[in-house]
C-alpha cells in the first residue's frame, strides 16, 4: 500500500525518571485470512506479526500480533525517561514489510 504510514505521539523532552506515555498507531489492513471475497475466493492473510520498540538500543516493548487484532493496530504504553536517545518503533508484517519510525527523547533536568 502506497499510503502505508504510522503515527507516533510522545513528548520529545522529559525530566530524568519521568514516566511518559507513548502512543503508536499504524495503518494496516490486518486481514485475517478467514474471509472470502465477492467471488468466494479466500482473501490471503495479511497481518502485522510483531511490533517492537527500542529505547537507546534496548528493547522496551514488544508484542506478537495475531489475526484477532483489528485493522490499524494501536498501542499505548508508558516509558521511564532515563537518558537522551532515540526511540525506534518497528512493525513487521507477514509479507516481510517493515515500517520504522524513529523519535528522539531528550532528557534534561
Amino acid at each position, binding site marked *: 500500500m502506497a*499510503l502505508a*504510514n504510522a503515527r507516533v505521539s510522545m513528548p520529545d523532552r522529559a525530566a530524568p525518571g519521568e514516566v511518559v506515555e507513548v502512543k503508536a*498507531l499504524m*495503518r494496516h489492513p*490486518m486481514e485475517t485470512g478467514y474471509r472470502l471475497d465477492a467471488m468466494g475466493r479466500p482473501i490471503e492473510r495479511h497481518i502485522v506479526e510483531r511490533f517492537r520498540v527500542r529505547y537507546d538500543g534496548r528493547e522496551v516493548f514488544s508484542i506478537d500480533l495475531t489475526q484477532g487484532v483489528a*485493522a*490499524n493496530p*494501536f498501542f*499505548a504504553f508508558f516509558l521511564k525517561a532515563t537518558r537522551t536517545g532515540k526511540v525506534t518503533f518497528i512493525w513487521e508484517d507477514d509479507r516481510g514489510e517493515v515500517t520504522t519510525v524513529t523519535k528522539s527523547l531528550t532528557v534534561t533536568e
Partner: protein
Amino acid sequence: MIRALLLAAALLAAQAWSDPLPSGTIWLSDALKAQQLDPAVNPGMLWVDAGARLWNEPPVTGPSPGATCAACHAAAALTMRGVAARFPAVADDGALLNLEGRINRCRSEHQGVEPWPYESDELLAMTAFVARQSLGMPIDVAVDGPAAGHFERGHKLFHLRQGQLNLSCAQCHDDHAGRRLRGDVISYGLGNGYPIYRLEWQSLGSLHRRLRACSLGVRAIQFDYGSPEYLSLELFLAWRARDVAIETPAIRR
C-alpha cells in the same frame, strides 16, 4: 385557545429548528468520543497524514511531474480553512461538486491527470486532509441561486419513500433520531464528520459509501458514488447540518 396552542407549537418548532442539530458524536461512548478527539489515537488521522503528503507531491513521477497542490494553494492550513464548510457547491459550469468532485476537477483541469476513483486511498486521504483544515468550523452551504435546483432535488429525495421497506430518509433521521435501531442509535444524518472512520468498515469512508449502505438497508436502489442523486442529497444534508461544527475525521460505529 387552540389557536394560541398552535402558535406556541409553531414558535417552539421554529426555535428548535434554528438551533443546530446535534452531531452524531453525542451518541458515541465516552471511549469513542475520546478516541475521535485525540489526533494521536484517531485512526482517521492516518489518512489525514497521507493527504498532507499528497498535497506536497507532484501528481506524476517522471520528467514532467506537474504542479503539486501546494504550488497553487500554498499552505493548506491557510488556504483550505473553511473550504469544506461550504461544500457541496455549484461550479462555474453549473455542476454540483462535493469536496471529492472539487479535488478531482482540480486534478483534471489544473494538474492534467486522471481523477482519483471514488473510495481510493488517495481520494479519501486528500478529502480528509482538506476537510480537516476546517475542523470546528460551522457548516454553511449555499442553497439559493444556482444551487436551488440541486437543493430541491435533495430535499425531495430525503422525503421520498424508497425501496422494499418503503422508507424515506426522514422517517428514520427526522422522526426517530435519537432512538435505537437494533444495536445503534439513529442519528440526524448530518455529514459533518466525513470522511469518517467507521468501525464496521475498519477504514475511512466517504459520505456516499455511507449513503449506499443506507440505501441497501431499506432495499432501495444504490446510486453510484458521485451520482447526481447522492450529490443533491449531500447538499440537503449539509443544509440540515448548518452551524454544526466539522469533526473530520469522525469515528462512527
